[in-house]
Each structure stands twice: as structure tokens, then as C-alpha cells.
């Protein structure tokens, strides 16, 4: 299997602090890679370096073999890499449907073409399908700010899937979501992975969620990769148990 994402020797320093320290890993086509580790170990900083929110101090990021280090997030997104954030990031005064159309509209054509094109950018159907897929039908015309926390998390994830991304980086999708909603979310993520062939990297603290969802798990501690392997290998790894999982 070929690698969708190749990260080599990424380093990020803030003043004297090294938040990410020579991290290298590959994400294979179609897999779900979990990324775990204690708070402050550099997971989100690593995401931000991969996605262009931060410029890495050293190292290289490749998407489908192409060097994309230092590209802006909007350019990366149009190359088929999307993300969700740790804290909720929807557009509260736009409706659920408008949020989804916005998430997809910049992927095709030119800026001028969009101005003179249809007002829904030809995405009403795709947005409605996504609404159906994430079971948000009854909320389609509601302002996103009026949804419950869990529903906003679902919308947040749905937005990352508009425009058919190759690779989606999810930063703590399960945080603060109740168990019923969480089962729904996991179910949707697996379906996205199987049906649309989307590749994921998921940061998460909920071990049960990570271990049941991911084909491989990477553990970080103090900015470095501590271990990378199948969920059962990770559970049995003494260094991981010592640093993170506990006894």
C-alpha cells in the first residue's frame, strides 16, 4: 500500500522549548491511524505543522509523494487534506446546510467563477447527502450555533468530509460527546473510511474509541514518537504503559 502522507524529521521549537522533536511516520492509503499521548506531548502541534497552520522549524511533509511543507492551510485543503479542531469550529450564524456548502465551495473553479456561478456553488445535493449521512436532517436550516455540543461535533466532522478529501486529520473528535452520540460518530467515521476510501489520522484520549477504530496507533511523549503499531501491540508495550496508559 502506498503512503498518502509521509512526515520526515519534523521539528518545531517555540523559543527554547521543542514541542515536536524529529517526528517521522507514514500514513497508508485507506488506514485509520490513531495518535495518542499525554497532554502537551505535541500531538496538536504536529497536526498544525502538517496542515500549514504552523511552519515546521525543520523537516518535510509529503502528500502523495509531493512536498507540501509550508503550504498555506487553504492550499492544502484544496489538495484534499482537511481537518477538525480540538475546540469546536463551526460558523454559528450560518445554517447547518450553509456550513456544509461553505466547506465544499472553494474546492472547484476560480474565485470569479464562483461569483457568477449558482449561489449554492452546485453543492446543495452533496450537502443534503452529507446531512443525511450524519443524521442532521431535522436541523438542516437551523443556525449551527443553536445545535447541541454533540450535534456541532458531528457537523464539524461532516464539514471536513465535504469535497471528498483524501486525508482527514481529526483532533479529539470524541471530546465532550455523550456515549450515544459517540457510537454514532464512530459508526459514521468507519462508513466514511470504508465507503469513500478516506484516510484518517485521529488524535484522541478515549482509549476504547481509539483502539476499536484504528488500524494502527502512534504514541507520542515529550515531542517524540514513543511507539507505533497495531492496537494490541501498543497495549502490551511496557514503555507506553509506563508513559501514558498506566497500570
Amino acid at each position, binding site marked *: 500500500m502506498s503512503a498518502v502522507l509521509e512526515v520526515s524529521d519534523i521539528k518545531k521549537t517555540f523559543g527554547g522549548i521543542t514541542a515536536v522533536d524529529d517526528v517521522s511516520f507514514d500514513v497508508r492509503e485507506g488506514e485509520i491511524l490513531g495518535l495518542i499521548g499525554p497532554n502537551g506531548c505535541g500531538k496538536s502541534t504536529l497536526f498544525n505543522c502538517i496542515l500549514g497552520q504552523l511552519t515546521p522549524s525543520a523537516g518535510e511533509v509529503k502528500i502523495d509523494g509531493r512536498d507540501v511543507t509550508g503550504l498555506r492551510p*487553504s492550499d492544502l*485543503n484544496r489538495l484534499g487534506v482537511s481537518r477538525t479542531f480540538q475546540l469546536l*469550529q*463551526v460558523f454559528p450564524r450560518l445554517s447547518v446546510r450553509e456550513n456544509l456548502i*461553505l466547506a465544499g465551495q472553494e474546492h472547484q473553479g476560480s*474565485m470569479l467563477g464562483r461569483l457568477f456561478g449558482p*449561489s449554492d456553488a452546485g453543492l446543495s445535493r452533496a450537502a443534503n447527502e452529507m446531512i443525511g449521512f450524519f443524521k442532521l436532517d431535522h436541523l438542516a436550516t437551523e443556525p449551527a450555533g443553536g445545535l447541541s455540543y454533540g450535534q456541532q461535533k458531528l457537523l464539524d466532522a461532516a*464539514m471536513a468530509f465535504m469535497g471528498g478529501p483524501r486525508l482527514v486529520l481529526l483532533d479529539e473528535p470524541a471530546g465532550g460527546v455523550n456515549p450515544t452520540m459517540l457510537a454514532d460518530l464512530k459508526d459514521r467515521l468507519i462508513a466514511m473510511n470504508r465507503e469513500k476510501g478516506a484516510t484518517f489520522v485521529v488524535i484522541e484520549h478515549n482509549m476504547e474509541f481509539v483502539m476499536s477504530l484504528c488500524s494502527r496507533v502512534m504514541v507520542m511523549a515529550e515531542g517524540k514518537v514513543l511507539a507505533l503499531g497495531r492496537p494490541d501491540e501498543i497495549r502490551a508495550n511496557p514503555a507506553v504503559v509506563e508513559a501514558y496508559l498506566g497500570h
Partner: protein
Amino acid sequence: MIAAGKYLRIALGVAVVLALILVPTTFNRYGLYILSQWAVMSIAAMGLNLTLGYAGQVSLAQGAFVGIGAYAGAILTTQGFPLIAAIAVAIVLCFAIGWLLGYPALRVQHHYLAFVTLAFSTLAFLVFRNESWLTGGIYGISNIPRPHILGMATSKPLPFYYVCLGSLAIVTAAVWWLIRSPWGRAFMALRENPVRALSLGVDTRRYTLMAFAVGSALGGVAGALYAPLTQYIDPVPFNLSLSLDLLMMVIVGGSGFFFGPFLGAMIAVLLPEWLRFTQGYYLMLYAIAVILLLIWSPSGILGILDRYLTQRRTRAASALRAVAKPKLEVAQ
């Protein structure tokens, strides 16, 4: 109920448009002048509402763009060019300058951005006053002609009022279409969450510049109409206080609401006139009215309406749920 609401809105719109066309035929010269000024200021405020209300970029320079448009209009029409050509030049000029003024917005936001645009406003005023070879300096430009439209002279107040009203109608339609296009959605995304917008492929830089450019261009349109309206311009009306007035119109009317600028301009232009009977107190009363309004509703006049409608919808939804619940229980 929704259909009824729609017809009610259409009926209200038609009534307002008819009133704007028919009622002023009975107005005197001064009344028509004030109403024309309302139409012109509504256009400028609509531009600012696009930049500030929809795209979330604070600007204290809209008055300067009205000035640039007014001087472009005055210079060109006194040189014998038709008004439509002057408006086109004002649009292009203000669009380009507005685009450049957008660059600071890529680095600074909120009140820092306000200060940058405020400095630009001062700069524009100094150019109007000191570059007398172009602008006539403190003596200004007089005898600005009013246009002939389809062979008809519009030099009398009523025909020129219709020129202003017609222009307002065209700008309104264009802005309505713009904010319903994908651009409008991208502007709102810029206002609500630029970081998330960027991660969804929205080129926030280009849209920020565009929001400034388009908003400023509408300021230019207003200016190019203002010149033939007053038929004489000097630098004084385009100082900082015009920018502040326009900002107030947007906020009082309801920033980010489509019809906010119309109401805001109405209050800023007409209310002081209505309060004139109070003699020396009218500006004080006007100031107090604005303060009270913003304490009551920080989101402006349309904010009050919006809250009322939201409450009513919420109540209607709860009522529906209350009816639906027993039915479900019976069904089980």
C-alpha cells in the same frame, strides 16, 4: 404560515418602494434634497455593511471613499464627461484603493485596524484640501452639472431624486445578489471564524481584500452621486466625521443585516431634521436617542426585530413539540 409571511414581506416591500416613488412628488426642494441624501448615504453604508457587517473588517475610512468618488465625479462631470462614466471611474478607483487598504487587515484586526483606516481617512482629507491643482483645495469645485438621462434633464430636485433612488435600487439588487453568492458565504465565514475558514480552503487573504475593495467601491458610487446632488464640493464633508457617521449608520441600523444600512441612514439623515422643531436641542436629543437605542439593543434596530422573530419561532416550535408529544405516546 411561512407562505403568509412571505406574501406579507413582498407586500411590505412593494408598499415601501411605491411610497418612495410617489410620496416625494409632494415634497418641497429641501425635503427632496434630504431624501436624496438618504439614498446616497444608504449606498455608502451598504458598502460599509459589506466590509464590516458581513466580512467583519472594521473600517473608519468609508467617508474617505465617498470623498474620492465625489471628487472623481466632480472633476469628470465638470470636464464634460457623462455621470455614468464618472461613476465607473469612481468604482474602479475606489475598488483599487480599497484593495490596497485591505492589506493592513491581513496583519491587524479590530481596533488596530480601525486606527490604520483612520489614518488613511486623515490622509485622504489632506489630499482633498492641499492638492488644489486637482481638487480646488479649500475653494472646492462648483457648478457640478446634473446628468441628462435618456435625453431628459435631471437638474430639478425631483428628477435627480429619482436618479439617486434608481441608483440605490441597482446597488441594492447587486448587493443582495452578492451576499447570496458563494462570496457572501465566504465573507460571513471570514467574520465568524477565519482560522476554520482557512482550513476549509477559503483563501481568507483574497476574500479580505475583496471585502474591502467591494465595500469601498460602493462608497465611491455614493460619492459620485453626492457631487451632482450638492453641485458643489469642498473637503469639509469628507473629514473623519463622515466615516464615523457611516459607521454609526451601519451599527444603529443593524450590522450584518441586509436592510440595516437603509434604517441607519434614515436615522442619521432624517432624524436630526425631524427633531429640528426642538431648536437648539435637536442634536442633543439625537445623540441621546442613539445612546439609548444601543443600550437597549447593541445589535441595532434590526437586532430587535431579529430577536422578536427568533423568540416567536422558538415558541412556535415548542408548541409543535408539545402537540407532537402526546401523539407519540398514544402511538406507542
